[in-house]
């Protein structure tokens, strides 16, 4: 019993802070979701109208679709490259490991404002660096910021650039925590490199992979700053860069539809929760 009491004390700071700084704001936004409010005037009860409107709102569903597309465009290359980088860095004969780690982690340290300025310059229609590269090898230029897919690629590449090194560092920490004795034992039993990769490395990395999939799902579904600074509050040409949180932000803080914004937030919370559970089951189920 004493043992348990100490554990509750250990985990309590999070729940106490959450009760004070989390529950009230969440409760308030739930209350708002059932009201009509412009932030200044009186709140009027609105029942489920905000939610009903959301279900038929084409802009909301476009934002959901955009968010998923950008998530796919960014997460798959990001985790794939991160795993490769981690494996290369983990090779026993690699020198200058610190240098590489710093180089790969650098994008994550850079502030988002700077990142936005740089990527704006990389993908710009007229004076952009990518178009300069395309031109110099004789290819036609791409109007990145006018094409729906171009905008999504630009936003995704910002995410990939910022977070690949971060995930690589996590994978590397995971690789380093696998006891070397397991590989030695497998070698003695005559296992090939490929066999020990799939029988030892991947299963031992499973919690780490699960971690990166879940965090990138949550992060990807909440994508906001990148599209906001790159294409503005309207999501760029054809609203192709409009993500769910950007939509929530615009409805709440630009259009002052606080009640509807809150409802969008709750719709989004449901989507993230469902999607995370699906991912969790998929990644956990793989090994067993």
């Amino acid at each position, binding site marked *: 019993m004493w*043992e*348990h009491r*100490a554990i*509750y004390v250990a*985990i309590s*700071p*999070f*729940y106490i802070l959450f009760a004070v*700084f*989390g529950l*009230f*704001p*969440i409760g308030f*936004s739930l209350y708002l979701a059932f009201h009509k409010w412009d*932030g200044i005037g009186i709140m009027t009860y609105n029942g489920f109208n905000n939610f009903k409107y959301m279900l038929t709102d084409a802009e909301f569903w476009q934002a959901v679709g955009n968010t998923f597309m950008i998530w796919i465009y960014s997460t798959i290359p990001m985790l794939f*490259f991160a795993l*490769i*980088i981690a494996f*290369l*860095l983990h090779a026993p*004969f*690699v020198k200058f490991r*610190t240098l590489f780690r*710093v180089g790969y*982690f*650098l994008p*994550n*340290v*850079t*502030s988002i*404002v*700077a990142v936005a*300025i*740089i990527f704006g*310059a990389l993908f710009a229609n*007229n*004076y*952009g*660096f990518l178009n300069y590269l395309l031109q*110099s090898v004789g290819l036609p230029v791409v109007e990145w910021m006018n094409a729906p897919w171009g905008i999504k690629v630009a936003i995704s590449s910002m995410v990939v*650039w910022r977070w690949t090194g*971060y995930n690589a*560092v996590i994978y590397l*920490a995971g690789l*380093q*925590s696998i*006891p070397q004795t397991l590989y030695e034992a497998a070698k003695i039993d005559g296992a090939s490199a490929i066999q020990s990769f799939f029988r030892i490395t991947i299963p*031992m990395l499973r919690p780490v992979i699960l*971690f990166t999939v879940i965090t990138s799902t*949550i992060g990807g579904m*909440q994508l906001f*700053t990148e599209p906001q600074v790159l294409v503005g509050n309207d999501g760029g040409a054809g609203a192709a860069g409009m993500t769910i949180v950007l939509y929530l*932000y615009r409805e*709440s803080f630009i259009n002052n539809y606080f009640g509807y914004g809150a409802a969008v*937030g709750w719709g*989004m*919370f449901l989507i*993230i*929760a469902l999607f*995370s559970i699906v991912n969790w089951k998929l990644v956990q189920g793989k090994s067993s």
Partner: protein
Amino acid sequence: MATKHLKSLVLYTGLIGGMLISMFPFYWLIVMSTRTTSDIYKFPPQLWFGGELWNNITRVLQQIDFWGAFLNTLFVSGLVTILVLFFDSLAGFAFAKFEFPGKKWLFVLLLATMMVPSQLSLVPSFVLMATFGWVGSFKALIIPGMVNAFGIFWIRQYATESIPNDLLDAGRIDGCNFFRLYWNVALPILRPAFAFLGAFTFIGVWNDYLWPLIVLTDERKYTLQIALSQLNGLYNTDYAMVIAGTLLAVIPLIIMFLFISRQFISDIAAGAVKD
């Protein structure tokens, strides 16, 4: 022997190629900070250093209280990082290695809080800070951020794999209570995870923008990102100066990361796990 050479050729080509791509935008940031704003919009793009770095930096230091903001940011980021490391590792260790009634639901609740977008509660959070009288105070930045679900989740994942149950059982037999087990057994093993979580938290607080922008009202309490945003607002077109300021704000993080990298390398976990 030949295969080993081929292997290392492939390995280094991959690593260096990837790193060049990874570092190019950062390199370009440095290049742009040494140029004038009109250079930045030239086509073809300017890819080599100019001579304007000192000019740009001088203007940054004239326009904003850079060093004051620097010290504010250092204080807030450092304090939050220490608090997060302590509270997150304590809770993460408890979730990783102990059974207690309600554990499953408490953990699900913890994960669920990560899924609530912070933008959703921006307005109510501000109302709360105003009620507490914390608007304009560092308390509004430090106290809500001193323990977080992400770190608990990360430490739990790490602790589950890296802390051997045998070691905990041995500790229990020696009569260690929960906090002794945390302090003497878990803490040394968790140290590589600390370097990572600490760096991550520090960087996050250092670069945080939206929340400080809302709650910091007193200019003397501005953090770097907010002070830099003043540059952006006042001199909309002077991008070269903004970029130079951004570069100044990033350099301390890079120095810190260089320092933390050694902690990653010294792989304390492996040493502790060996029998």
